[in-house]
């Protein structure tokens, strides 16, 4: 199906459609699950371990990244809160992060391929990827060419993902590739489903909602459709691929609701940082505050978690 544009198009357009009203309703119903006490404690710790602690600002400095790395390893000094999954930075700061995280379990993810717009020549994008990998990144978050996707040039998008995967993991580096669909620019859920399959077929280890630079970013119905894609891809191939939600997730309540969705839509195998991530920055502190609340019974406020 991936041998030419026409076959790929036939396959993607032959996927069952997504009824938006129904998808919205399903996501809303899942959000009514009431997660309390022991279930909440488990969910909060699981969510912490799934965070890709992210800083993607033009104003980022090595100092800021080092501080973020310290937080990633020990989010809440003096408690048994687990470390996060990874830190996520621009390619030029990968080396700083790698040095700061040496000896820890925390991975280093780097956005690449002319993030966030993806508007550069393929050679430039691949160079960006090789730089990040050479500096020690263990995970690459690439963006797809949304323009090409929306123009129906599916094979071009497919081949770019394949080339990026090759550039990132070519030498058996074990680097994980996350493919950012930027669903806020794809708009329809049918497009989200097609782009998800396209990225999975091209070898993406994760499909990721957003760059965080476009609104809307991660939304429950989009997460629903992407989790369904990961589930269906496993049914079709037996391979487990991950889903990462990024952008706009700031509260524990939202994070726990997404874990409910992972649990009931994809299944409990995905309740694992290897297969599900939150790309976030302020979410971590809210999770920690909720963690304190569960331990002590009282909210202690933002001055009792660290600001980085």
């Amino acid at each position, binding site marked *: 199906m991936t041998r030419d544009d026409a076959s790929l198009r036939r396959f993607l357009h032959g996927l*069952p*459609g*997504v*009824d938006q*009203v*129904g*998808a919205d*309703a*399903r996501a809303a119903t899942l959000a*009514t*699950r*009431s*997660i*309390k*006490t*022991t*279930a*909440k404690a*488990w*969910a909060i710790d*699981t969510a912490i371990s799934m965070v890709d602690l992210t800083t993607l600002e033009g104003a980022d400095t090595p100092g800021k990244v080092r501080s973020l790395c310290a937080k990633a390893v020990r989010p809440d000094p003096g408690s048994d809160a687990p470390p996060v999954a990874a830190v996520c930075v621009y390619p030029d700061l990968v080396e700083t992060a790698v040095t700061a995280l040496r000896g820890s379990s925390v991975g280093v993810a780097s956005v690449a391929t002319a993030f966030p717009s993806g508007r550069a020549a393929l050679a430039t994008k691949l160079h960006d990827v090789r730089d990040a990998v050479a500096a020690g990144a263990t995970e690459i978050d690439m963006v797809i060419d949304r323009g090409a996707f929306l123009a129906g040039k599916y094979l071009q998008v497919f081949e770019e993902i394949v080339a990026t995967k090759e550039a990132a993991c070519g030498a058996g580096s074990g680097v994980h590739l996350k493919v950012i669909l930027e669903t806020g620019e794809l708009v329809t859920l049918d497009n989200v489903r097609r782009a998800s399959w396209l990225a999975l077929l091209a070898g993406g280890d994760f499909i990721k909602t957003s760059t965080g630079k476009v609104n809307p970013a991660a939304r429950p119905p989009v997460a629903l459709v992407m989790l*369904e894609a990961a589930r269906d891809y496993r049914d079709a191939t037996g391979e487990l691929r991950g889903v990462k939600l990024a952008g706009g997730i700031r509260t524990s309540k939202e994070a726990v609701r997404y*874990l*409910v969705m992972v*649990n*009931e839509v994809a299944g*409990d*195998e995905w*309740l*694992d940082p290897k297969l599900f991530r939150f790309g976030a920055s302020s979410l971590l502190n809210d999770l920690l505050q909720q963690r304190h609340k569960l331990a002590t019974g009282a909210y202690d406020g933002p001055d009792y978690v660290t600001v980085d």
Partner: protein
Amino acid sequence: MNRFEYAPAPESRDIARLKPSYQIFVDGRFRDGTGEAIKTINPADESPLAEVAEAGPSDVEDAVRAARRAFGAWSTLPGRERGKYLFRIARGIQERARELAVLESLDNGKPIRESRDVDVPTAAAHFFYYAGWADKLGYAGFGPNPRPVGAAGQIIPWNFPLLMAAWKIAPALACGNTVVLKPAETTPLTALVLAEIIAEADLPPGVVNVLAGGPAIGEAIVEQAATGAIDKIAFTGSTDVGKIIQRRLAGTSARLSLELGGKAANIVFDDAPLDQAVEGIVNGIFFNQGQVCCAGSRLLVQESVADELVASLQRRLGTLRVGDPLDKNTDVGAINSAAQLAKIRELADAGVAEGATRWSPPCDLPERGYWFVPTVFTDVSQAHRIAQEEIFGPVLSVLTFRTPDEAIAKANNTPYGLSAGVWTEKGSRILSMASRLRAGVVWANTFNRFDPTSPFGGYKESGFGREGGRHGLEAYLDV
């Protein structure tokens, strides 16, 4: 490590403000009925909830007299003023929404998620909607000054006790009628709390009377209509009882509207949005434990996607949470009564005996109470009882078809005609199917959605008359 166990999240039973005993509501006053005092029980654990002093024959006569007496002043009250009372009742329901939701779940066995998110808000919405019509009846298309029918006897079922009371009372009052309402014997509590809300709204005495009681009281109300003491019967319930009522009222001047049983076909084409179709099938047959007259109890799926769809459905059923109705995470609650449970069991056993394949997800049922595990029958043919008879329980019969014509033929091949569902991404097919299906309600790419603005009612043995929307006014106007 990766097992996400949801801790129990029960709604507090205290919110229901259960009283040891409840009284009937006649002529603006609460009083003990002259019938026997019965105990209403919680179907989830068979424990008694409260005692209800049932109405006797003399209470029916009192209630009818009160409704007649109240009719003159109520029917001539300006619509704008009647509307104010309805708005007040609607707000009263909203103010006591949590209480009503917990009480409904206790008395009926339905999950709190449904009573909280569907039954109670939709009941309030019905009063709000018909409150708006009260002063606009002249513009509803029934002439410049349509007259009310008179005093109406209203007999409602146990599956949506509060919501059905709202469906009946709201349009009747908006049009200027007075009512004698009889909730079902097993679920009288929320209708009696609604009577409290109505009393607090200062509705004139006799405009609404609520009589708890069993079939004998229903019969007595119908008898009042047969002798001309009341002008209309509105009944929602089984087709068998509907036929008895229609027979009794034949040749009398009493009007009648019936909303009876159903055996709805939920038709899934191969180009359907399959994930949403699975949700629609689940909502169609497991909503309210399948105890819904318009439940999508027959799944008609195009053969080319049947295996895939049934596999997805089975996986989805594995995530349904069956148990304590008051737990906020419960999806499927208890069957309303021992009698209903026996009927569901009988038909499910007949399905096995006739050669259909029975499947249920693994699930632990509570030891006490009336429980039936969500069940799917495959290899079902039209000749099987489970494809023909209304089960009124969480039991789905799966049939297949090859062409749209075959789907129509099978879907319409039932004495019922209440509702149907069509799942396809093709708009033209939705329209052509909807025009050929003999069903009062056809849902497209959804199922079991209720809105006060939309008319609801049946064809054939599913009854006649419409409830909801502008059409719902007609049943309570002299047109």
